[in-house]
């Protein structure tokens, strides 16, 4: 029978998400404004002097990226729920894994776009250059890690009564290992310490990504079927 090939389905879903986003900019718009507000509030709340900024900047970066990604994940999956679209995706002759990977890639791209906005803005506001190859690598890996967990959990939480409110509560603790190693790795990269001192965190981050991607891929069918 004419079952749709995996990558064709994935590509269709990603393209659909990007198309909708180009038109309305609902997701990236909300995430971007939130992220900018967050770093401003952080700098007021922490009243940082120059040295302190050096120490906390990667923490501020990650907290901001994570909270704006939670915002985006909720929106992205709510979009699938509102008109019963998740059902529509599941009605198509495509593997459940393709639905997951498609949504994951979309969310990954959106969160990376926010990070791309944050990097120059934070570098300017905090006077610390974040354009360090290892910080960029850490961002690629870390964002992949928690959008992996987040896409799975958001698919679950949009189907619950509490909806949007539940995602940060269930997601933050599970994503903790990723957040922890990402913060450590980027702090290390910015501290000027020798690579050997902190490269282990980048490796842990890569290993965690691999574990979570595999786990979430196989768990996803269980959160969409009845």
């Amino acid at each position: 029978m004419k079952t749709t090939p995996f990558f064709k389905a994935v590509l269709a879903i990603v393209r659909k998400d990007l198309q909708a986003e180009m038109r309305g900019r609902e997701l990236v718009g909300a995430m971007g404004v939130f992220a900018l507000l967050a770093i401003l509030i952080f700098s007021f709340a922490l009243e940082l002097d120059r040295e302190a900024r050096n120490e906390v900047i990667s923490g501020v970066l990650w907290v901001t990226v994570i909270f704006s990604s939670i915002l985006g994940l909720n929106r992205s999956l709510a979009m699938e729920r509102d008109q019963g679209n998740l059902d529509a995706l599941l009605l198509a002759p495509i593997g459940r894994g393709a639905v997951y990977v498609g949504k994951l890639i979309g969310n990954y791209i959106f969160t990376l776009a926010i990070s791309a906005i944050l990097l120059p803005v934070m570098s300017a506001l905090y006077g610390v250059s974040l354009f360090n190859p290892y910080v960029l690598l850490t961002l690629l890996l870390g964002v992949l890690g928690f959008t992996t967990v987040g896409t799975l959990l958001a698919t679950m939480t949009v189907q619950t009564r509490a909806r949007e409110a539940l995602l940060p509560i269930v997601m933050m603790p599970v994503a903790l290992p990723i957040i922890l190693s990402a913060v450590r790795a980027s702090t290390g990269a910015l501290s000027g310490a020798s690579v050997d001192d902190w490269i282990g965190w980048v490796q842990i981050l890569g290993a965690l990504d691999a574990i979570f991607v595999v786990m979430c891929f196989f768990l996803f069918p269980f959160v969409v079927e009845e």
Partner: protein
Amino acid sequence: MSAAVAHSAAESMPRSNRMGSRLLIFLSILTVIGVLIGLYLGLIAAGTDIEQGEVQRLFYIHVPSFAGAFVAFSATVVGGIAYLITRKVKWDALALAGVEIGLALAAINLVTGSVWARPIWNTWWNWDPRLTSDAIMILTYAAYLMLRSGIDNVDTRRRFASVYGILAFSTVLITFLIIRIRPDTIHPVVIGPVLTDASMMATQGDFELNATPGVTSAVAFGSAVWSILVPWVLVWWRIRLENVAHRVTAMRVKVMEQ
């Protein structure tokens, strides 16, 4: 025909038989005795710690209770995986029991640790990575219960809970591993190899497992009781409670069908 569905569903939850009940009561008594012996060994038989004094005796509960929580949360993972594969309600009952018992034991672990830290670290709480990840672990399983209560359809609830119970175990592993990988924790490593610089910890209130034979046997005995008997007996009782609740639901459905 209508009652058949409810009836067969009720059958899948076996009525607890007499043998099982007797064994459970026997094990429960054994557990109480075991815990009492453990307390005797720790509070009376073992010598007082030279550096820390009487407060060190909290470790005879603190360490075993984490072992028990670890076992209970592991049961949640096993129950979750088995439920997703077989869709038998009993596995979800195991997973739920694991979370509730694990939470209780983790709370004991956290409170005793905090009481110990007051004189030794001179604070109830510090943002040590171990303490932080332990607190986050407890919040994760609280989130598990919130997730459950947020879903009306029982099948969906069981499915989502199983998935989340599997993912949540990552926080248990982190809590267990963190004193071994984070160099800046001041929490002592009690079991297993230490990868961090040990000299740093000597000043922070160390706990030597090999101090005296009395201490070793107290911790070993306590851990055995708390990681084998305590969680399993409590989990068993909790599952029986769940079975009773399930049978009540089945009967209610049967009555509604007539």
